[in-house]
């Protein structure tokens, strides 16, 4: 990571909602998915009506229905962000040990997380900015156990620096764990420990992506 990359020409890709909408298209019917904070929490808005995606919260909820309206909020029923929620029919509650048995044991289909950095080999940094307040929650368990770890994030940080980097400079959450990255500019897959650009957002060119990405990757664009 460096501060000295010359600023590329402006490009407008997907909005945060657009990133969530694009990612939602790739969730399959019947998936059980854990969502991190940030853009991932926007994903449920964009699930097609013909897909049933079960949402898991690591405090022991399988089958989140949505945020609870104030009149139905129950202090005994919250998501991992401590927000009051509702349940779907067929929901189940577990204790924390069984919740993380589900996570670590690979029984979720996917986890969707925000990121500070993703490396060329799929390393993820998303829990701690040195010098700030450290807290990890369930992030390290989620990336260790879930077969598909999808990152949803802005392509560059607020200062315009790439968040997809050759090597993470931020403390790692897990090594070689990321399987897909959805950003405002592009979609990457990680295959055999190597990044592949598989899709550019509408109106974004491969050159736009290249100029804003700090890691080596290969292009596998359709069509």
């Amino acid at each position: 990571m460096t501060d000295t990359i010359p600023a590329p020409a402006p490009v407008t890709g997907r909005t945060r909602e657009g990133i969530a909408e694009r990612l939602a298209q790739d969730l399959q019917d019947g998936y059980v998915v854990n969502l991190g904070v940030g853009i991932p929490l926007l994903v449920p808005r964009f699930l097609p009506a013909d897909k049933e995606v079960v949402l898991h919260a690591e405090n022991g909820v399988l089958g989140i229905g949505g945020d609870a309206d104030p009149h139905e909020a129950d202090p005994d029923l919250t998501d991992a962000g401590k927000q009051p929620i509702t349940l779907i029919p067929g929901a189940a509650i577990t204790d924390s040990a069984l919740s993380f048995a589900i996570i670590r044991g690979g029984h979720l289909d996917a986890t969707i997380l925000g990121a500070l950095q993703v490396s060329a080999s799929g390393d993820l940094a998303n829990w701690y900015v040195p010098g700030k307040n450290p807290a990890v929650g369930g992030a390290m368990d989620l990336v260790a156990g879930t077969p598909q770890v999808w990152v949803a994030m802005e392509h560059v940080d607020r200062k315009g620096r790439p968040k997809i980097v050759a090597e993470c400079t931020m403390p790692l959450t897990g090594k070689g764990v990321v399987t897909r990255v959805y950003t405002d500019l592009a979609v990457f897959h990680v295959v055999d420990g190597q990044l592949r650009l598989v899709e550019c957002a509408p109106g974004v060119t491969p050159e736009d992506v290249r100029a804003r990405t700090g890691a080596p990757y290969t292009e596998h664009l359709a069509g």
Partner: protein
Amino acid sequence: MIDKFRSDVLSVVDAVPSGASIAVGGFGSSGRPDALIDALCELDRRDLHVYVNNVGHDFTGVGRLLHEGRLRRVTASFPILQEFYDEYFAGRVELELIPQGTLAERMRAGGAGIPAFFTPSGAGTMLSDGSFTLRYSPEGGVAEHVPAKETRMINGREYVLEEGIVADFGFVKAHKADRKGNLRFRLSARNFNPMAGMSGRTTFAEIEQLVDVDELHPDDVHLPGVFVDDLVMSTGKAPATDEPAAAATRKAS
């Protein structure tokens, strides 16, 4: 005959000395045993090592223990409270930060007679490699790191060895209990409570409802009374009613 219900929380918590370690249930304020924690304050206990997922917000729960300077060490995954970090960076409280699933599994393992287990969580990170700061020096700088954890490659993957937590005491909040100590939790207030109850050499449960001994069906007990030593009534909010789950359950859009 077995009757674990006690009317006076202070005489129960009086068994906890300063310097004790305590595994505490709850996730945020959901399922947090505030009556037991508040009793520690009333009894002026200090120098405590608390295993808990969150330190609470404002000055409730474990946050109150912190605010009153009663904590020596916190083992947690998500201790988000600015005052906690202020105390941590000032070297007045130690932080052993561990993944949330590792915290749950360590409490369960300790209660289950498993002294150590391998987990993939945290492998190759600061939380296993010995670089995380356990304690800052009051003069600034690092006084002590969390020791590096043993790692092992198993089937081509790196795992971290983590130890079971056997705490001196377990603090639990439950929804219903009978006098034999059988506990039932409600919705996501269950969370770490069964684990905290297993982890304690001695476990206290504060409860919202005391029910007749034949009311809990044997298949409906979430944590059997064998893990519980004493029951006290919870304080604060009115006991939750039985069936808001139905109200809270609606078709997913």
